[in-house]
């Protein structure tokens, strides 16, 4: 794996192509889980690899490539979400003054393509609840559920301790259960 990094540092395009082919699924799947929008996830995945290409010289190899990629992906996704929230907020302010340039309607339910058909509706409901979680809880939960990472791996990707990650996951699950129970209670 260090071979790829060494070749990338020399500007080898074939090495870059190899890296993209090997990690694109991981980066895209993580971005899709956090952003819950295929176009946004593709956009962020491209930005991640662009940053990898630009900053590979500063990668010292202290962590695994996957950890480095997860870190960049999470940072880019959170930046994207913040930008989107800011735009939405300004869109609401503009709409007060009659300038409706932004589409303010909430997006339709998100369906992850990897979910089994039998669980499709429940998963859509769960994703809706995930979307309402605080940032760090959302990232920890998505990395655990969609990427199957352990608490230690999540901690490395989020630059947090194992106990902090376990706390985040516990609170995330608690919040999700509360939201889902509320939904099912008021369903009828």
């Amino acid at each position: 794996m260090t071979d790829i990094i060494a070749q990338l540092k020399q500007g080898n395009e074939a090495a870059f192509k190899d890296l993209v082919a090997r990690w694109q699924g991981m980066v895209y799947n993580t971005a899709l889980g956090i952003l819950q929008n295929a176009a946004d996830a593709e956009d962020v995945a491209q930005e991640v690899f662009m940053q990898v290409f630009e900053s590979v010289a500063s990668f010292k190899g202290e962590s695994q490539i996957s950890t480095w990629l997860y870190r960049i992906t999470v940072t880019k996704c959170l930046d994207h979400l913040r930008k989107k929230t800011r735009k939405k907020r300004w869109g609401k302010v503009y709409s007060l003054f009659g300038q409706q340039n932004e589409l303010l309607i909430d997006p339709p339910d998100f369906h992850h393509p990897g979910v089994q058909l039998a669980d499709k509706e429940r998963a859509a409901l769960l994703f809706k609840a995930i979307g309402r979680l605080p940032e760090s809880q959302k990232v920890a939960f998505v990395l655990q559920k969609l990427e199957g990472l352990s608490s230690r791996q999540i901690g490395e990707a989020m630059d947090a301790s194992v106990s902090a990650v376990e706390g985040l996951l516990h609170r995330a699950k608690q919040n999700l259960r509360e939201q889902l129970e509320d939904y099912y209670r008021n369903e009828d």
Partner: protein
Amino acid sequence: MKQRRDIQQETEQAMRSLDGVQRAEPAPYFYTRLMARMQRARPADAWERLIALITRPSVAITAVVLILAANSFMFVSQMRHSSELVEITALQQAFADEYQLGITTFYEYDKTEP
């Protein structure tokens, strides 16, 4: 209204709905699209890079603030200098009047003396 047990059961099923989820892959030709974007994003030459740097709002605003600060500094220092100059000129004039330094020839001295 649903029973409490049903609600809990539904909730747990929803919580488990992502178990065994397959990894999503980007649409085909991801690398081609990535390369196209990288080509677009790469500035063509040094001039474009310079223009991109100058037109950044943070750089432009900082430059304007620096120019305004330099202007203000020059204006204030000029004002102070000109008031000092007036004072010095007045003193020089008073000194010149006192000792009649304006008179350059003997004949003129005669004219002023009674």
